[in-house]
C-alpha cells in the first residue's frame, strides 16, 4: 500500500487541486481514499490500481463539492457538473455525461489534454512536452474545454 501511495500520491493530489482549488481539502480527499483502503473497507482489482485511484479522486472531489455546497466552490462545481444539486444518485450519470461531451465536442487535442490532466493526473509540464506546446497554451486549452463543458451543462 505504501508503494502505491508513493507512486500515485502526487498525481492524485494534482487532480484534486485542479478541481477543488484548496490544498487541505485536496489532501483530505486523497487521504480518505487511502484510509479506506488501509482499513479494508475498499478493495482494488489487481491491475486497476492507478485507474481506480485517479478516478476515485476525481469522483470524490465532485461529490465533496456537491455535499458541502461551499459557496466559493460552487462555480467550479458547476463547471465540472453543470449543476449544484445534492442528488448523489446522479453523480455517476453526470460524470458519464462529461465523458460523453468531451468525446463528442472537444477537438482532438483538447480531448487529449483534458484526459492527461483530469484522468491521468499529469503535470502541466508533462502535458506541454507531450503536445509540443507551452504550458500557458495547455492552460488555455483546458480553460477553453472547461468553459465549453460549463456552457453545455448550463443548457440542460
Amino acid at each position, binding site marked *: 500500500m505504501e508503494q502505491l501511495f508513493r507512486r500515485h500520491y502526487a498525481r492524485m493530489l494534482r487532480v484534486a487541486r485542479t478541481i477543488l482549488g484548496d490544498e487541505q481539502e485536496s489532501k483530505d480527499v486523497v487521504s480518505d481514499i487511502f484510509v479506506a483502503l488501509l482499513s479494508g473497507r475498499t478493495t482494488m482489482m489487481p491491475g486497476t490500481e492507478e485507474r481506480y485511484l485517479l478516478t476515485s479522486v476525481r469522483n470524490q472531489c465532485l461529490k465533496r463539492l456537491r455535499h458541502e455546497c461551499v459557496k466559493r466552490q460552487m462555480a467550479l462545481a458547476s463547471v465540472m457538473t453543470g449543476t449544484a444539486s445534492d442528488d448523489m444518485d446522479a453523480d455517476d450519470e453526470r460524470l458519464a455525461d462529461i465523458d460523453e461531451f468531451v468525446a463528442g465536442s472537444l477537438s482532438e487535442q483538447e480531448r487529449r489534454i483534458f484526459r492527461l490532466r483530469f484522468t491521468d493526473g499529469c503535470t502541466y509540464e508533462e502535458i506541454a512536452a507531450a503536445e509540443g506546446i507551452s504550458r*500557458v497554451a495547455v492552460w488555455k486549452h483546458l480553460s477553453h474545454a472547461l468553459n465549453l463543458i460549463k456552457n453545455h451543462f448550463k443548457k440542460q
Partner: protein
Amino acid sequence: MQTNDNHQLFLDMQEHPENYTDSELEAMMDELDREPDVDKEWKRIRARSPLLTSLRRIAAVLIPVLIASGIAWAIIPQVISNDESNERDAETATVRQADTEGADVSPVRFNDVRLDSILGVVATHYGKAVEFRSSATRGMKFFTTWKPDRPLTDFIEGLNMFDGLQLTIQHDTIFVDAVAGKEDGE
C-alpha cells in the same frame, strides 16, 4: 491555494485566462503542480488508519495488565509491531466493512505467537482464566486473527481446528488440552 482569494483567483484564471499575463498563469500552474511532501502525508494517513489506531488502543489497555501478570514479553512485540507489519495485517485481515462497522475494536492478528501468550490476551479481554492441562500446548505457535468484538466461542472454535489442540470453556476458565495422537505431530 490556501485562501479564498487564491481560490477565486484560481477560478477566474480558469474562466478568463485572457485577463492574466503568462507569468501569472505560470505561477498558478507552479502552485498546482507543486510536489507534495509524500513522507509527511504518508505518516498522516497511517495515523488515521483505523487498524493502527485500534491496535494502539488495545495495547494501551492490555499492556499494563499483561506486565502485571508477567506474560507481556511475548505478546507486546506483536501488538505494537512496526508500521509495515501492521500494514500487512490491514491488507490480509479477512474482516471487511460488514464485519467491522459499528465495532469498537478492529481485529488483532497474531503472527507466530505462543498459545499461552495469545490466550493471555484473549482471556483477559473476556474476563476468563486459562488452565493448561497439557504443558506441551503452551509453546505451540499460531498465525491467527482475533476479533475482540466477537464472542469468545468464535475464537475458541477457530483454534480447535488446529491439530493437537482442544480448548473448552467451563464457567470462567478456558481449559487447554492436547489431543491424543495429534500432539506428537506438532
